[in-house]
């Protein structure tokens, strides 16, 4: 579980996060949504420990990040998996080597054991035949799946995804969403996704945190988001006519 307590972050005069508090529970897929410039990426980087909040505290399973020693921080980070927006695969390595990389860095497994584990997770993301391809030879969807495989290979406790669907066609985007949700359930991990994609919100948002101008404007589940009267949220989530109609139908159906 990750608890965020009143975090603030500024860069020079720009006050990006203005006191956000929330909780991300274990075994659930949580989405952080909001317009561009709302502070989502800075928030995610604070959770990852890449940025240090100016005020406030982030607790990982009850332990405050700021109270950890350097070694403890390093160990905590080894338990984090991250799927970057652009996949961030190491382009000097094959797909298999990319997936094996966290094992090489953080375990004492033999090469055969590492290959076996990497092979297992690559199969889990439906990439049985791509082991020896270079990342540049893989499609966007394949690269995202490799990034997910790399993120989960060392059995993380926390999985972070920054816009995992960006640049993907709708069908592949749903495959990636479902894969993340299945992995979250299967490994009982705390998953946090930054997203603009309203399909993801409706499909896998067990918890949704809506950020606006560096503040938490709303939080709830995907069921709540249909019912909310919060105009700020409805303006953003139902900005397209299609989603407006879907919401109307849902509300009519529920009476």
């Amino acid at each position: 579980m990750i608890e965020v307590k009143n975090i603030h972050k500024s860069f020079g005069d720009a006050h990006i996060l203005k006191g956000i508090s929330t909780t991300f529970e274990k075994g659930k897929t949580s989405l952080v949504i909001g317009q561009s410039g709302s502070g989502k990426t800075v928030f995610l980087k604070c959770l990852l420990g890449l940025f240090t909040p100016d005020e406030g505290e982030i607790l990982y399973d009850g332990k405050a990040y700021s109270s950890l020693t350097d070694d403890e921080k390093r160990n905590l980070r080894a338990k984090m998996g991250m799927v970057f927006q652009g996949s961030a695969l190491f382009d000097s390595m094959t797909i298999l080597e990319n997936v094996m990389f966290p094992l090489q860095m953080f375990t004492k497994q033999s090469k055969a054991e590492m290959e076996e584990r990497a092979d297992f997770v690559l199969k889990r993301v439906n990439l049985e035949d791509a082991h020896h391809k270079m990342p540049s030879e893989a499609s966007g969807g394949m690269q995202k799946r490799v990034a997910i495989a790399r993120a989960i290979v060392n059995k993380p406790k926390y999985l972070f995804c920054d816009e995992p669907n960006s640049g993907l066609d709708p069908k592949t985007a749903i495959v990636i969403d479902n894969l993340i949700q299945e992995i979250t359930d299967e490994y009982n991990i705390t998953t946090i996704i930054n997203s603009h994609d309203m399909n993801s919100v409706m499909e896998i948002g067990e918890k949704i945190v809506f950020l606006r101008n560096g503040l938490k404007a709303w939080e709830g589940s995907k069921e709540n988001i249909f019912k909310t009267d919060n105009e700020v949220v409805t303006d953003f989530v139902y900005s397209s006519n299609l989603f407006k109609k879907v919401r109307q139908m849902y509300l009519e159906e529920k009476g």
Partner: protein
Amino acid sequence: MSYLHNIGAYFLMIAEMFRKPTKWSVMRTLILKDIDDLIIGSLGIVAFISFFVGGVVTIQTALNIDNPLIPKYLIGFATRQSIILEFAPTFISIIMAGKVGSFITSSIGTMRVTEQIDALEVMGINALNYLVFPKFIALMLYPFVISIAMFLGILGGMAAVIFGGFGTLDDFITGIQMDFIPFHIIYAFIKTFVFAFVLATIPSFYGFYMKGGALEVGKASTTSFVWTSVAIILLNYILTQLLLAK
């Protein structure tokens, strides 16, 4: 102020580079890869330039000695001194600032742009140790490149003398053996080690801390070449004053 900030950040980067070392089994592979990219991959261009510039140095020396009272073996002597003291360590290092330096800046800069460095940091890996330290170790073999440059420069000079008809082989060999001071070789290699450190760290600094996209990678490579060259020229002056001046 930004110059002072960059100088401070550069020295902090160097300190950070030695902290939290990467596992040896991984580091060994990285070092071998960097030896291949930075040292072995540079031998061809260094050999080509050294041989022909050695020849040009010899021809120009020969053409400027028009007094019949000056012995011909001075051509070999002047060639040896020029190549060992300046051409091989300094001139080749400036060329390497272009070849190796821009390779380092653009490869690390591209990793920054494509979030690969963020990926390393998220995993709790010291990205500076992982990326820069192997380059620093690989470039400790740089004196090997400079030895080849010295040898081929003198060989080029010898070929120019013989095929250009500027003197005899015996005169040239007498010249390159005359008044040989072993400390000049030590001086050249001290410079080479210092330049190797500069070649590994300044381009890494500009790649690692760059911001922006593909265009900025190109700009960072150019800036890194300029500052690596400036550092080499300044350090060359300082080391020459310290080591050779009496």
